């Protein structure tokens, strides 16, 4: 058995209600700027935002945090992360992934289903839910598989997963595309009673198979790397939005990577089709030229694309065609990357660096303001995932799921210093803006003074 980051404090599997993780502490944030607005004081008590106003008095026993003009955002919500547990605890655990998330300003993370065993039944998703609560740093929302074993042949037990304690609302075969049109149609229909969304990894396996690893274009031809053409993603999205219209369901497109995909989604939304989309930070910042040295730290699925696509993705995120930033946090043990490019594992770390990258690429360039960033990284993801309590407005009475970030402070990414067990980040040595000073999960600080808070209090209080 592999050790988790936190001790379970003698927990057994019983249903937990939100109050049990609520903090009874009080915290006063002095001089915080909600959504980048004017500085105010914010009082957190009993897990809620109690009061917002200028120069609030400090109640007895309250913790005082001098925000010093830092920006206050709703706690970030990630729709797409791989926490690797169960099965690959040598690369990441729910606990270490949660730590990376909290340090990145996240209060909720959706954990994808391609674990080992696959999360295609109620038992596994409930197991992941418990692991998340034991870690106690973010709300881990298990994602259920669409097809049994991710094999793309028959439906997984979607109903059981939706009705389980994990209350799964996002279903995805991510890692694999639901390529069979008939199965995709059935799955879209089947999800309707549960108010759940199907998150598709758009990659037609007949146009881009398992060996495809680099954007098909001038560079892949020159380097001799198997091409992953943009059309392999765009053709699936085009098909899926039409199926979504036909079935009257809800579709979410994972990790959009091409300008053509943005065009299809924009068209679909203009026709009233219920489709949402996410983009990863690395696709907003990095281009495929980085592959020249054959370093697999840049190997990701879908692959890095040329500058024209990066531009289109930024524009799409700015105008809301793309609803959310999702990390697709994909940790790997070093030996899985220490191979030739074509043989190495796909994936890039993302939870701890996402906010910095998005600030750098979208806010500092004026493409999004802070309200826009909050919308794409918290508000809309929470809606898409049907996640109550997160992505809420910063007003009194709302749950205190918040993050405090100082955009003026910059930090340098050192792979070994990240909280993730793995080190496969493409940003090694890069300076990112925005240091997360504090993160609050229902009023309790998971990050304070820029460091993880290791709670010494039991995660469970008496019911």
């Amino acid at each position: 058995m592999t050790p988790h980051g936190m001790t379970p404090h003698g927990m057994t599997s019983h249903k937990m209600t939100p109050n049990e993780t609520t903090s009874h502490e009080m915290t006063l944030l002095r001089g915080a700027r909600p959504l980048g607005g004017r500085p105010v004081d914010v009082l957190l008590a009993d897990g809620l935002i109690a009061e917002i106003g200028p120069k609030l008095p400090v109640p007895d026993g309250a913790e005082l945090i001098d925000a010093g003009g830092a920006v206050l955002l709703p706690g970030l919500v990630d729709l797409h992360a791989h926490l690797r547990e169960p099965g690959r605890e040598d690369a990441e655990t729910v606990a270490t992934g949660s730590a990376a998330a909290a340090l990145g300003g996240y209060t909720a993370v959706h954990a994808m289903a391609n674990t080992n065993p696959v999360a295609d039944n109620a038992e596994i998703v409930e197991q992941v839910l418990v692991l998340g609560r034991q870690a106690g740093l973010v709300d881990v929302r298990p994602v259920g598989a669409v097809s049994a074993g991710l094999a793309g042949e028959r439906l997984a037990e979607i109903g059981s997963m939706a009705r389980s304690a994990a209350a799964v609302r996002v279903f995805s075969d991510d890692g694999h595309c639901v390529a069979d049109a008939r199965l995709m149609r059935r799955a879209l229909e089947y999800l309707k009673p549960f108010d759940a969304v199907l998150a598709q990894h758009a990659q037609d396996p007949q146009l881009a198979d398992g060996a495809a690893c680099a954007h098909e274009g001038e560079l892949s031809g020159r380097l001799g790397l198997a091409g992953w053409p943009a059309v392999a993603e765009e053709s699936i999205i085009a098909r899926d939005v039409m199926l979504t219209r036909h079935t009257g369901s809800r579709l979410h497109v994972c990790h959009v990577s091409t300008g053509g995909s943005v065009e299809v989604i924009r068209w679909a939304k203009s026709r009233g089709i219920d489709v949402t989309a996410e983009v990863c930070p690395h696709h907003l910042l990095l281009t495929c030229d980085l592959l020249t040295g054959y370093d697999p730290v840049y190997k990701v699925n879908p692959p890095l694309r040329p500058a024209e696509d990066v531009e289109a993705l930024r524009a799409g995120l700015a105008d809301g065609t793309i609803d959310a930033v999702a990390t697709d946090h994909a940790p790997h043990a070093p030996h899985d990357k220490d191979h030739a490019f074509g043989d190495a594992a796909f994936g890039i770390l993302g939870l701890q660096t996402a906010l910095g990258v998005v600030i750098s690429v979208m806010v500092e360039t004026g493409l999004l303001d802070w309200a826009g960033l909050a919308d794409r990284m918290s508000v809309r993801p929470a809606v898409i995932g049907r996640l109550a309590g997160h992505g809420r407005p910063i007003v009194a009475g709302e749950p205190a799921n918040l993050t405090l970030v100082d955009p003026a402070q910059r930090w340098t990414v050192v792979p070994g210093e990240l909280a993730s067990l793995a080190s496969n980040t493409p940003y090694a040595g890069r300076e990112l803006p925005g240091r997360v000073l504090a993160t609050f999960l229902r009023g309790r600080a998971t990050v304070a003074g820029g460091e993880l808070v290791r709670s010494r209090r039991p995660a469970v209080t008496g019911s």
Partner: protein
Amino acid sequence: MARHLLSAADLTPKEIGQILDSAEQMDAIQNREVKKLPALRGRTVVNLFFEDSTRTRSSFEIAGKWLSADVINVSAKGSSVSKGESLRDTALTVAAMGVDALVVRHASSGAVQRIAGWVDCHVVNAGDGTHEHPTQALLDAFTLRRRLGELTGRHVVIVGDLTHSRVARSNVLLLRSLGAQVTLVAPPTLMPAGVASWDCVTSWDLDATLAGKVAGDVDAVMMLRVQRERMTGGYFATEREYAASYGLGPARLDLLPEHAPVLHPGPMNRGLEISSMAADSPRSVVLDQVRAGVAVRMAVLYHVVAGADEPAGLAGAGVAG
């Protein structure tokens, strides 16, 4: 000379000339009774092949031995990925035995370049995936030079499965360095992505190209192997159709000028990309290519491995005497 030979693009025209000239000198050794030169005496060269290749490996093995090196063959096929050992560990383990040079062949593009970044010894690329095969391009140039003289301004046509050909990539780079013109001929399905940006002419019409109507008179034609398995990927319809459109049969042979040789890196699919008649004609230099392989690889090993390590730019600065 640089520390490694990973790509045909690593070599300046002057360095290419030096290697080919050295190969001419070393070629003479094949006629001697004592086939030994002391160039790599006391050095250890390991042929680290992750992909089978009797022909290339034997060629490097003989080359190393004729240069008096101690040569070991390590067949790493089936190790690494399948056994869970990383490429890095496999390479470092072999290199840790105190080798002076690794000659590496791998099925994945870029693998040899990665290995060169991890080990301390010299690395020679014996073929990485569909990326490059620099010593093949050098022996092709050696063979062409013997037949045609200096290659500046000569027109070489390369035909076949270009998408999957490391021989094609290395040849385009090397021939261009030597000032030759290159035309690539293949059906659209076998043209590499982005080939329009390569430093050469492309055509779908082999007849027009060989007749001199696409890029001028042809001085040499190189036929590349087409794998029959590619039919299942939809790259071409049938063998019959491929041979009819892109095979070097008697009619196409007649289109060539008198002096133009026919090259093939081997192994040949007789009847598919090259007819037996063409393969066995006096124009065919296929066996010359094979013979050149040893001399050229001796020259490569000499230039990359012998001598003290030097900073770039001083290659050839020494004066004989």
